[in-house]
């Protein structure tokens, strides 16, 4: 976007949408109309509340569906996100990106056109960086194998992108499981941990790949369950987050072993980081 990778591009909040309790979707339109954002599913960017700070967020929409806007799902959880949640459409923010690697979309297709089965497990706001993958698959449905989606949250009001679930589940060769840890009076769907649903459905590991993102505690137990179901570490892909200050491999904050989440990740195969995953 410019020569100095620390310099954010100014962008205007074109749309702010409530996704769930304490979670909003921000669509950012670059002030300089020449600025273009080209990226792949899984990449992330930094969003600045100018004067408060900046934080990394996964790009939450596929480029094809972005309309040229940078889109981030933001959970109100700290000082930067507090400030972002107070903002109104038309306010100025800073955007840096795209950064990091991306999901191996070609590998998801299966090397031999055999229609590899894709299992996607998203917990809470962890569904946001997976949404571009889902959109990419749905937009090129013939090129990918069967898709099995597991969407979970602690409670119904924390489920993000609910209004898109109908589109997702109606797609050909797509199955969807939605569950919440704890229901409420109006919830008629499934109640239970994502790992319990995963164990019930028990997808076969044969010619399959699993992709997961969610809170650390969820990832920990999803990894265990996938292992129990017979998924090899090489068949499990995850996208990680950590404290990051630059996104450029310079600030020394986001390493998992000798891998930098910001540059070598955020997308990893489990076998790449298993040895160095410290405390979840």
């Amino acid at each position, binding site marked *: 976007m410019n020569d*100095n990778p620390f310099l954010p591009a100014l962008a205007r909040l074109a749309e702010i949408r409530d996704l769930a309790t304490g979670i909003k979707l921000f669509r950012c339109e670059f002030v300089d109309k020449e600025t273009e954002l080209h990226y792949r599913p899984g990449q992330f960017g930094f969003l600045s509340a100018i004067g408060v700070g900046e934080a990394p967020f996964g790009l939450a929409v596929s480029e094809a569906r972005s309309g040229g806007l940078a889109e981030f799902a933001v*959970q109100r959880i700290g000082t930067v996100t507090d400030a972002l949640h107070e903002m109104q459409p038309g306010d100025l923010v800073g955007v840096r990106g795209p950064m990091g690697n991306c999901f191996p979309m070609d590998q998801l297709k299966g090397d031999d056109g055999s229609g590899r089965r894709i299992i996607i497990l998203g917990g809470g706001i962890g569904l946001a960086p997976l949404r571009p993958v889902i959109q990419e698959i749905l937009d090129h449905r013939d090129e990918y194998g069967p898709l099995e989606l597991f969407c979970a949250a602690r409670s119904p009001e924390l489920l993000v992108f609910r209004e898109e679930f109908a589109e997702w589940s109606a797609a050909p060769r797509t199955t969807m499981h939605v569950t919440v840890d704890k229901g409420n009076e109006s919830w008629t769907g499934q109640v239970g941990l994502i790992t319990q649903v995963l164990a019930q459905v028990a997808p076969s590991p044969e010619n399959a790949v699993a992709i997961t993102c969610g809170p650390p505690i969820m990832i920990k137990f999803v990894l265990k369950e996938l292992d129990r179901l017979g998924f090899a570490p090489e068949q499990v892909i995850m996208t990680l987050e950590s404290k990051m200050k630059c996104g450029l491999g310079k600030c020394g904050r986001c390493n998992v072993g000798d891998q930098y989440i910001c540059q070598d990740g955020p997308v990893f195969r489990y076998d790449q980081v298993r040895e160095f995953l410290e405390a979840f």
Partner: protein
Amino acid sequence: MNQEIISRQELSRWLESLLPGYTVIAPVHREDRDVFAVIGSTGEVAWDAGRTANPAKEFFFPASETIVRWRTGPAGLQVEAPLATRPQVLFGARPCDGMALDVLDRLLLADPADPYYKARRDATTVVGWACGGEHPGGGPFEGCFCETVGGGPADRRFLDVLLTRHGDDYAIDAVTEKGRQLLSGAKTEPRDLPAVTPAHAADDIVGAVLRDRPQPVLQMPPPTEWRAQFDAAFWTELAQRCLGCRTCTYDCPVCYCFDVRDRALPDGTIERLRCWDSCQGMQCFAIAGGHNPRPTQAARQRQRYMHKFLYYPEREGVALCVGCGRCVVDCPVNIDIREVIAAIAAGATAAERVPA
């Protein structure tokens, strides 16, 4: 063999001549310590300085610096990134201070280069002097171990000019073109020094003293040894002594981890600052919401040493350490990085406590 020599007086005069055009950083006496500082006249230079208490890092990578500035003007919000471009000379650097720059260059100048570091690095010429030999400040110093990480007391590779004390004078080794150009105004004279070859005067002059160095050189264990100790109880034992004070990281010439913060000034200007951070602080790795992937001092101690001797070598080809020994002498509880290296080399286990 002819060797370019400069007298102390001429060296001082030359340095003085640089002051109008350059920011000159040199060792000076401050209270009971020697420190690197910007000088206003050569009268301030501590010619007999030992190892400076502070590394030269802050002159390339300040403890706090503005990286982005936003101002509201008639045309709306304007954004700028201030880059330092004033030429500077780092004078009196030790070979390990020069090596520290090479270690940092590998990360910070790699694509995409850190523009703030690069601007200062490009604008700086490094004039160092060799440790040992006849240098009054001496060296090697308590706790230092540059040979373990591939350096040496007369290592010229990462300096633009290497000076070696010889009697009342200094032998000059102009290592780089940048160094040669800076020296163009210096009044040097060739002198016949039978014992030395021009390019390596320092090796000959310093070498004699260092050959008598008492302790055997500490050997660096290979990456596999560090990897093997990832889960060792050793880290917990080390952490029981560590106060988490961060001194080791701030005093380190190559610890580079940083934090980024915004602040609003009274006139409405907003600045984004980056500041040194430390892996030894409790909150260093904690993310919003409270999750902390390194929630114990043991995990943070392990991160410090693994970063220096496993992760950085694997990524950048060199240790994130130049063996200067500052952390050894400054640690309030006497954690000694050499003992950590020795313990890993010996295959640390729960039973083998690091000697205090």
